[in-house]
Structure formats: C-alpha cells, structure tokens
C-alpha cells in the first residue's frame, strides 16, 4: 500500500501513513494524476525532512495520503511540476521552507521571502515595456506586486509577486491555536476558516456538535458566500463604470452583513463559531426578520443583474474578457468558483460533504462556464442566489426544529501522533486545514491551504492578450486573497 485513504473531517495515525522514497512517491503521484490539496514538509528529527502529500479523489470523496522522507544529504529531487503543472506552487513552497530543490521546475521563484532578489521574467523588443504595480495599490486593498510585460496596451505576460502579507499564521497556530486567530487568517472568509479550524480540532478531539449548531454554522457560511458575491458584483460594476450596479449591490450586501451582525455581534460573523458549536443561538424573532431581509435581497440582486445583462455596453466589457480555458484551468489546478466558471465541476460541498451538507442534500447546480469575466459574473450571481435560498431553508428549519444546546464543551485533549484534515468550501473555493500532533499529543504542524494559493496563477493567465486597462476588472472577477496565499 502506497497510499492511505481518508474522508473529509477524518483522522489517521501518522505512523500508518506510508513512507516512500521520493522517486517512488513522485511516480505514484504522476500515475494517480489526482488533484493536490496539500504538499508540505515537516522536520522529522536528525536533520531529516518528511514530505506529506494529500491528493483529492473528488469522484469518490476520498483523500489519498502518503509521504516521503528526505535524509540530511538528499537535497533535491526531480520536480513533479514538469509533468503536472498544478504542483508548481506547492513545490515552490516546499523548496522555500526546506531547501529541498525540485529539479527542472520551470518556475522556481520565491513565494513569500526574498522579494528583493526576485528576478522577473523579461521580454525584449522595440514595443515591449514593463508596468510595475504595487505592493501598495490604488484602492483600499491588500498589498502585492504585479509586473506586466506589455506590447503597447496588450499584456503579454503578468507576473505576480506576493509575500508581503506573511504573518506566520501556521506557526502561530501551533503555539496559540484559537478560533480568533482562525477568524483572522483571511478577513473575508472569517466563517470558512473558523469552521475549517473548528472541524479539524473537533475531529482530533472527537467532539460532537449538535445539529442545531451545525445548521447555524452552515447558515453563516452560506451568508458569507452570498454577501461576498453580491459585494463583488458591485465591485465589478464599479470597474466597468456602471455605478448604478455598484450602489445597488453595495447596499444589498449591507443588508446581508447587518443580518450577520444581528446573529453574532459582528458584520462578518466574528465570534460566532467556537469549538463545540456556536456562541449564539438565533431566536424566532431574528429568524423572521432575517427571512424578510434575505427575500428582499434576493429580489433586488436578481433585478439588478437582469437589468445589467440587458445592457449592451455592460456585456461588451464582460464578454470574452480575461478568458481561462477549461483545459488550462484543469492543468494549473484552479479550484472553487474560479474553476467552476471555466466549466469544471469542483465543489467540496458536494465532493466532500460534511454531515450538515449531507443532511441538506442539496442538488448540484451545473454552470456552463466559458472562463471569462462574464462567466464569473453570472456564476457569482447564480451562487449568491443559491446561497440565499439555502440560508432561507436553514432559517425555516431553525424555526421549526426543537431547541437544543448550540454549544457543547470541547476539551482540547489532543491524541498522539495523529493527522486530521478538514475541507470547507468557502466562497472562493476549498479551504483546507490540516493538523498534526506529535508523540506527546501537542500540535506539531498546522497547514492551511487557501484557494487563492492555487488560483493566483489563473489570474495571470486570464489577463494575457487583454488590454492592461482590463486588469482591474479581471482581478475583481477573481478577487483572490493576498493574506490567504501569504498567510
């Protein structure tokens, strides 16, 4: 056995994970040709390094786990990226953190460190020029550096250099794990990250969460999705100078997050989810108000989108802008909303459903995506409407089901030598949290993978052969996270 299989929100004894030679592991990975969700190293004592790999088998809802050990003198291996490009960023991270070099990696650049020595890809020619943007951008957003290689107005190539946001979250998580830190990993995915953290810890400690609490958690997750999608519809409208859209979507988003404030005391749901359940129950009075608000939001958003899509000057900006083909998307390993907009079907709510999504038994809605801004715009609309609908269904359930405790006591008694994985579908895509404990039962490694980690390269591909002035529009249609990638 070269792999051990695991379900989402499952745990295994670390010693049961097969340990192969890297050459063998590499061959296995290439033969299986599954989607990487984790690929990370850990100090393994005596100057050795252990490489853990988790591959997602989406069709069978299974995670395949394996590992390889590198001895002190083994400092390189043949890169996997040259065969499977989706590994490119994982191998870069592994190299940066452990100094073990993937040979013949086509793109072995710094990821979070040494920005000063970063060598940009360069082109030469009479008309070719570079445009440098960042780290501080024009708007109120997180920092990152973009380097465009342009021919006149056309972008030939965009290189994205990140790392400015690095706060050392994974290390902090080992020393001071908390729901609050999880909420601040990425402030636009508060619920998704806190949920993934809570689930991975609850899995480790065998802590059960009541049905009602699970419903409230899922409600919050879907409301977060709806709120961000609506906000981004507004931002896209703003970027094509359709200010009416920006105003209406901005105002309707406010309604959703203010409902979240009523539920949790924070517009983004901070303080809501806690190990063992949730901190706040929702009474019928609030449910009634929320149902009314969300119904209004549904109507307003739908109306505005339809008005917009009838407008030819809007359509001419959205259509065929920033295209990523389905083949490319698959090759580079796009995930989540961005992947679905290219026509892939990935969605961990359905591929790796947790108890609550299994219970809700939602139908998977298909989307015929073409990979352009228009597809991302329409998909966000579709998903926002879907999330509002799910939220309303959950609210109805909460109104009618019996009251039960929404929080159980969850003692952090961690088992020894264990690995647990939790995948949550945030609004961008899969958020993966992996926790490892050592022989004393303390956290020894905490690994987080944000969907942006996979998807930044997708944005770089999307702007190729587009006008440089369309960059903000492409960017907003993805709206990737800087701190999610830099952690």
């Amino acid at each position, binding site marked *: 056995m070269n792999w051990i299989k695991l379900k989402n929100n499952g745990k295994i004894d670390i010693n049961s994970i097969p340990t192969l030679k890297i050459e063998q592991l590499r061959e296995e990975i290439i033969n299986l040709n599954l989607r990487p969700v984790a690929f990370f190293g850990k100090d393994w004592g005596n100057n050795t390094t252990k490489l853990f790999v988790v591959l997602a088998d989406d069709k069978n809802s299974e995670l395949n786990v394996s590992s390889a050990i590198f001895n002190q003198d083994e400092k390189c291996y043949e890169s996997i990226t040259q065969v499977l490009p989706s590994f490119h960023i994982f191998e870069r991270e592994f190299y940066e953190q452990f100094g073990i070099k993937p040979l013949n990696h086509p793109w072995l650049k710094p990821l*979070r460190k040494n*920005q000063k020595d970063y060598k940009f890809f360069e082109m030469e020619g009479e008309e070719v020029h570079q445009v440098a943007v960042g*780290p*501080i951008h*024009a*708007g*109120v*957003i*997180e*920092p990152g550096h973009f380097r465009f290689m342009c021919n006149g107005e056309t972008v030939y190539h965009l290189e994205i250099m990140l*790392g*400015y*946001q*690095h*706060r*050392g*979250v994974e*290390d*902090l998580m080992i*020393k*001071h794990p*908390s*729901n*609050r*830190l999880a*909420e*601040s*990993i*990425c*402030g*636009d995915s*508060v619920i998704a990250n806190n949920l993934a953290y809570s689930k991975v810890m609850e899995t480790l400690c065998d802590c059960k969460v009541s049905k009602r609490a699970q419903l409230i958690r899922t409600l919050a997750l879907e409301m977060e999705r709806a709120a961000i999608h609506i*906000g981004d519809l507004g931002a896209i409208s703003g970027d094509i100078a359709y200010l*009416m859209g920006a*105003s*209406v979507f*901005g*105002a309707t988003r*406010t309604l959703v997050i*203010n409902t979240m*404030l*009523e*539920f*949790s*005391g*924070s*517009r*983004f749901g*901070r*303080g809501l989810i*806690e190990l063992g359940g949730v*901190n706040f129950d929702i009474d019928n009075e609030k449910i009634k108000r929320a149902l009314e608000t969300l119904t209004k939001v549904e109507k307003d958003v739908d*109306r*505005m989108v339809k*008005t917009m899509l*009838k*407008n030819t000057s809007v359509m001419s900006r959205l259509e065929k802008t920033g295209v990523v083909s389905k083949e490319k998307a698959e090759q580079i390993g796009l995930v989540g909303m961005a992947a679905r907009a290219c026509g892939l079907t990935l969605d961990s709510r359905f591929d790796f459903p947790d108890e609550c999504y299994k219970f809700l038994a939602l139908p998977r809605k298909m989307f015929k995506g073409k990979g352009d801004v228009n597809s991302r715009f329409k998909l966000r609309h579709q998903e926002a409407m879907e999330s509002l609908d799910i939220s309303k269904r959950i609210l109805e359930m909460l109104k009618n089901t019996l009251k039960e405790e929404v929080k159980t006591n969850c003692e952090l008694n961690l088992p020894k030598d264990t690995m647990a994985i939790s995948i949550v579908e945030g609004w961008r895509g899969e958020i993966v949290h992996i926790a490892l404990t050592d022989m004393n039962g303390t956290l020894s490694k905490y690994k987080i993978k944000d969907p942006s980690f996979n998807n930044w390269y997708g944005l770089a591909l999307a702007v190729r052969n587009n006008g440089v002035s369309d960059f903000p529009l492409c960017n907003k249609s993805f709206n990737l*996270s*800087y*701190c999610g990638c830099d952690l």
Partner: protein
Amino acid sequence: MFDTLKSRIYQGNQFIKDIKNAPMREQFRGLPKLCNSNCNNCKDCLNVCPTGALKLNPLSIDMGKCTFCGACKNVCKTGAIDFTNFYKLSTTKRENLIITEDMTQEEFSKIAIEVRKEIKRVFGKSLKLRQVSAAGCNGCEMELNACSNVNFDMGRFGIDFVASPRHADGLVITGPISKNMAYALEDCYKSTPDPKIVVLCGACAISGGVFQQSSELNREFLEKYPIDLYIAGCPVHPLTFINGILGFIQGK
C-alpha cells in the same frame, strides 16, 4: 437606460442622514462596560482572551488589543464584563483606549479625542487619505471600503481615500505590519507631503492584535513616527471610522 432609471427610483435614498447619531444594532460589541466589584478573580476571561487585552485588579480592557470577540463576556459567570453598542471608539492617546470600570461612555467621550486647532483649520473641510494595508486580513480593508458606499457615503464630508500618497494628507494603516511590508509603508509615509496625519485602524495596527506574538512583524515604524489617531475594532466598523475621523478634524 429606462430599466436603470427604474432601478434607481426603486432603490430610493440609502444613505444614513445623521452619521453622528446613527443607530447601531444592540448586538454590536462596542465600548466595554466593566463592573470591578463583580469580579471574583477566577481568571477565566484571561484564559480565553486571544490578545491579552484584559487585566484584573482592577478589571480593565485595552481596546487597542481587544478583538471584541466577546469570549470574555461569555465565560464570565459573575457578569463583570459586558459590551455596550457604543461605537465611537477612537482616541488621540493610546492609553485612553484602556477601559476600566470608571470609564463610562460619558467619561470616555469627554477625553477620547483631543481636538487640535491647527488640524481643524487645515483638514476640517477636506481630508484625503492614503490607506496602507500592512498585512491586514482584509477585514478592516473591507470595512474601510464600505465607508465610501452609498450607505455611509463618507465622501460627503470631504473625506476620501486617494490612489497616491502624493495626493494625500495622511495615512490610514491597517494590519500588524509584516516584515515584508515595513519598507513599503515607510516609503509611502515619506512620499506623503507635510503636514500629514497617521491613523492606526484596528487591533492589528494598534497593538499587533491576534498576531502580537508573530516573529514575522516589524513594527519599528510606530516608534519612529508620531501617531495622531487610534481607531479600535476588529474590524473597525464604518461608523467607528467615520466618526473617529470627523471627531478628529472637526471636533464634536
């Protein structure tokens, strides 16, 4: 065109007219309300606080560290800790963010913002700000963006975020300031013409927040340059931000 107009009429006016007295939902966790005599020294709150914002004997909460998560209130069995929905949480002095039992809403409001004549004169009617996210989690950033949406409409007071530090009268810093952003932040400060102000926005910027213990921060900037305004929150609510700035440049 016609449809767009219809949507416009249907939406009506969304802006909050009286921003200084805007109502806030009761669930919002704002200014802490502490009762020292109820405290029985069990230290449960200290154990759950993610940022070390709490102190006992006497009971106090440092809003510069506090994430307003409410965990302390949830564990406190004696009701010594509560949060009001008062949202004007800005001060011109760092130490005034520390709330004790005596610091009631009235007391706090009195001392919170020290109005300087020259600030009022120079920036009172127009203040252009450059925002620098220095490892902010995007929570504070989203709320700062919301300040300019149709509901809060900060622009009507002459307060705007601008694209270049060269056009700015000051910086608004969010995030705990990562090592990798330290240089860019300082560069941006130097590129802003005098006279300028510096505003720290959110628990991260003020104290490092939940990232205080990270080894990836470089907060030297804060020692080198004067800070004019501290705005508490995690994230900072748009009403907190706008009222903080208005209080600072216009007085009450």
